[in-house]
């Protein structure tokens, strides 16, 4: 814009010019204040994000230390027992008792197998956790998958004097997923329900189509989970007070954390509701993926 030229004898014109400058100055100051406010907000936001990040890093470091400790513990304890078994036999303590030697060697075999299973689970866990490796998926008939588990699960249930009530729908559209991983997750959930039930209890397994999702619900009448422990049940190696070894519930606390990661890797969700000493309900749902057939 051309600057306004005023006649030297025209005070009104000069006053107008000064008013113009003043107006601009006011506008500039307002903009400046706005900018400063923005900067302050941004810096507060950055400070908040920074401290959040710091807290998260500290938490992760602690979790990592705890994880390494737990893994070492879970690996070393069975190996120490195997070491003892070998020493007892090598040192000739059972020289005259071949039957007992064999029994102990069989125990050693079981313990070594447990260690191998644990290592495989850990590998699968980190594979799913990092999300780096893609899982191979295929079309799965969930009805067939679940039916293939009933015999094995019924046998485990009856060993523990528990009955499974199967309510499996046969009209669920197929989902896409990794059959091995899903099988593993389903077995684990049903296995847990049996393991944490009291003798004579029932476990109800229901599968159905719910809108566009496949839903699996496993309900038990067992020992339940404490309310304060519910947020931690998916943490690796977490075991509830009710699930500790003195209650004769074997396990390492890896199962549910793996289940959750398997389900997440399939775009599914898992919900757990529980009442102490009354039972637990686990609900798993997967989107019935709409995908073009190959």
């Amino acid at each position, binding site marked *: 814009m051309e600057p306004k030229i005023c006649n030297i004898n025209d005070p009104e014109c000069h006053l107008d010019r000064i008013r113009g400058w003043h107006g601009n100055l006011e506008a500039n100051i307002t903009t400046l204040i706005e900018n400063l406010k923005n900067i302050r907000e941004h810096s507060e936001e950055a400070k908040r994000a920074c401290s959040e990040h710091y807290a998260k890093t500290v938490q992760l470091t602690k979790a990592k230390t705890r994880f390494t400790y737990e893994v070492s513990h879970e690996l070393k304890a069975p190996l120490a027992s195997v070491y003892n078994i070998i020493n007892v036999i090598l040192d000739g303590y059972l020289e005259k008792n071949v039957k007992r030697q064999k029994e102990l060697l069989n125990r050693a075999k079981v313990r070594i197998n447990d260690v191998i299973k644990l290592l495989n689970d850990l590998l699968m866990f980190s594979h799913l956790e990092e999300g780096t490796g893609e899982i191979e998926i295929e079309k799965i008939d969930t009805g067939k998958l679940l039916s293939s588990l009933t015999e094995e699960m019924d046998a485990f249930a009856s060993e523990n004097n528990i009955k499974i009530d199967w309510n499996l729908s046969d009209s669920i559209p197929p989902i896409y997923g990794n059959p091995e991983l899903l099988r593993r997750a389903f077995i684990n959930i049903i296995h847990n329900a049996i393991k944490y039930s009291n003798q004579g209890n029932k476990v109800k397994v229901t599968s159905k189509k719910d809108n566009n999702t496949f839903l699996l619900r496993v309900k038990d009448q067992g020992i339940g989970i404490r309310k304060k422990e519910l947020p931690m049940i998916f943490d690796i190696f977490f075991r509830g007070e009710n699930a*500790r*070894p003195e209650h004769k519930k074997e396990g390492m606390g890896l199962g549910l954390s793996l289940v959750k990661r398997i389900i997440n890797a399939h775009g599914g969700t898992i919900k757990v509701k529980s009442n102490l000493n009354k039972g637990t309900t686990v609900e798993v749902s997967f989107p019935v993926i709409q995908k073009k057939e190959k």
Partner: protein
Amino acid sequence: MPKEILIVDDDPDFVETMEIIMQGNGYETRTARNGEEAFKKVKEKTPDIILLDIMMKTKTDGIWVSEKIRSDDKLKKIPIIMITAVNQDSEMAKFHLGQEKDMEYMPVNVFMEKPIEAKDLLKEIKKLIGGP
């Protein structure tokens, strides 16, 4: 009368093999699977020595047992050998005891880390109670 060892561990294979070794060396044994059971058995009949696993995963762990025993006038002199699966167990135990305390303050006589060499363990037992 042979001396008696109370073996406390939540791992049944470890307990069984320790029993074989100790009985094979002339000791009598009793066993417990957790802290509560161990303390109950100590009160029923005082053992000559306790092999106590730290049992970090049980509610009444090894530290709990050793503290209970050391605060009981009748029992506090029983020698205790604390067995840990991972040397970090003792670090974890420190958290349990509170940061200001150190392992020297742990109420046990000896610490041993798994895997245990039978001859080393027998030597420690002999040092503490003088053989079977």
